[in-house]
């Protein structure tokens, strides 16, 4: 029953629209308002449900080139997950350690992880860009970025 990518995506979207519709019907309504806060969400929920059913029954008409995009080699999956993990660490420690420290470390290790082996250029780029950006934002645009454990 769930053979074919359109069927799987159609089903996921249909479940999503049902969830969205359920929440839309929970929204409070008020008298004397011609169109309440729930009207547009309810409409969108029903439209998505209809479209999901249409997708479920439609043929996979994607080109071969597009279908090839769905197959990701294992080493690329690892690289994507690695970058994702580095991003998560960056976000988690961003406010604690501060913008400069985290960004320098992120740019350096992300480039290194993705295979850039010129350590000197990598170090220069990962120090110069974050410091330059920090200076632009904090001193020129007066937008405060987390300084973390650094005194400036």
């Amino acid at each position: 029953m769930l053979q074919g990518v359109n069927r799987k995506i159609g089903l996921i979207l249909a479940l999503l629209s049902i969830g969205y519709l359920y929440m839309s019907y929970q929204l409070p309504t008020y008298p004397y308002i011609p169109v309440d806060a729930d009207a547009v969400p309810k409409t969108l929920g029903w439209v998505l449900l209809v479209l999901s059913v249409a997708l479920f029954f439609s043929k996979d008409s994607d080109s071969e080139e597009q279908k090839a995009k769905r197959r990701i080699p294992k080493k690329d999956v690892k690289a994507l997950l690695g970058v994702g993990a580095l991003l998560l660490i960056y976000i988690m420690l961003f406010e604690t350690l501060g913008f400069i420290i985290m960004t320098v470390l992120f740019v350096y290790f992300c480039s290194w992880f993705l295979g850039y082996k010129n350590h000197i250029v990598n170090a220069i780029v990962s120090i110069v860009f974050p410091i330059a950006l920090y200076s632009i934002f904090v001193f020129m645009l007066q937008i405060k970025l987390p300084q973390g454990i650094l005194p400036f």
Partner: protein
Amino acid sequence: MGAIEGILTGFEVAFSWEGILFVLLGVFVGTFIGMLPGLGPISAIAIMIPITYGMDPTLALVMMAGVYYGAVFGGSTSSILLNAPGISGTVASSFDGYPMAQQGKAGKALAIAAISSFAGGTISVVLLMIFAPMLASVAISFGPPAYFALMLLGLTAIASLSEGSTIKALISAVVGFMIATIGIDPQTGTGRFTFGSMNLLDGIDFLVIALGLFAIAEVCYLVMNRHKTAAGSGKEIGSLKLSKDDAKEMSGPVGRQSLLGFILGILPGAGATIASFISYIAEKRIAKKPEEFGKGSVKGLAAPEASNNAATSGAFVPLLSLGIPGSGTTAVMLGAFLVLGLQPGPMLMGDRPEVFWGIIASMYIGNIFLLVLNLPLIPYIARILTIPRPLLISLVLMFSLIGVYAISFSVFDLYLLLAFGVIGFLMRMFAFPAPPFILAFILGGMMEKSFRQSMTISNGSISILFENNISLVLIILSVLSFAFPIANSIWSKKKAG
């Protein structure tokens, strides 16, 4: 203020030293990002938005507009040199540009692209100057029903004109609209889909969506292609000189396709990509020697290049005069206006003539800068293509993260950015077009507002949408733009069967 005074004010802004500096900065960044395969104008504009915080809105928008048309201008370089278009609007330029480069005439191809782009850009700015104020003066009488119908047309047109399945494009638009409903409803104060989180009360910032769906998703593909080198970009490009015959051959397609590109740019849903393809096909149809197309034809390169740049200026007509974007890229431009506290639309020309005319006037200077950047300096600028991918990936991620944090000061938004990056990547993987998503997200709130205003005026009667001639015509066009591709696909299947 009259039109002449307005134009003079615009040129005053454009010719001030700050105006010149920010146009130069915008077109340079645009050329740079547009040239890099994978990163498009939406990412370019979204990445630049945080830099404009606190800036004078006029100068900021002059710069952002420069980033947009600079990206379309610069996108052709990688199409010609690498056969890897920097942006989708320059895919058609690779059909004849790349074969020309392979024949050892890369310099000539780059010169044709630059001159055609310049001509297309400049002709269309003149047309923009004429049509934007005309449309603005008509749109001033538009009421909420007409606005609602206009936005509906924008959404159905972009969904039906998107590449691939219409159902997927419509799903993309509906989900984008759904995301726009998150947060406090401005009319009743009801919290919608906030899951009790304080962070979602204000809704999701458009920059989170734009950077997530485009920049982060594009970075995922760069990660997968991280070992690809820009072979060919470092090679000798040969002479940039064009012969008299080349110039003669170019003039016809450039003139015709600039006009066509401009018109297609104005239409909702079309834009640079569709304009470039239609112009390429149109020029091939009327050519005396159509067999030369695809083998390094001068006409085959000049036509899409003039057209895609003309479409870029054309897209500014509905954005500036109606306040309604017709494409994903102009939707992000509208987001930039809103971030800077400005609302484009029919009132902009009267209320803020320096912004309205300043942006238009700066395009003349921007096009001249682009010609200089893309002709004598192109051999040097093309070296940008040799930037190691790992460094590029890290820096784009850094710009995206800082951009989002600087607008909301919230770590929660950084997690959201990551989540939308994953969604954007999955959408590309399964061929769901992202431009309808961002357009629906930006238009969603405005559409709901116009709809509810219309219903309040009519005391809840939906017939108000069909009573006004303008809204009636626009709704009929929306239905047709939605029904036509479906009918066409059923018809072609029947024919094939």
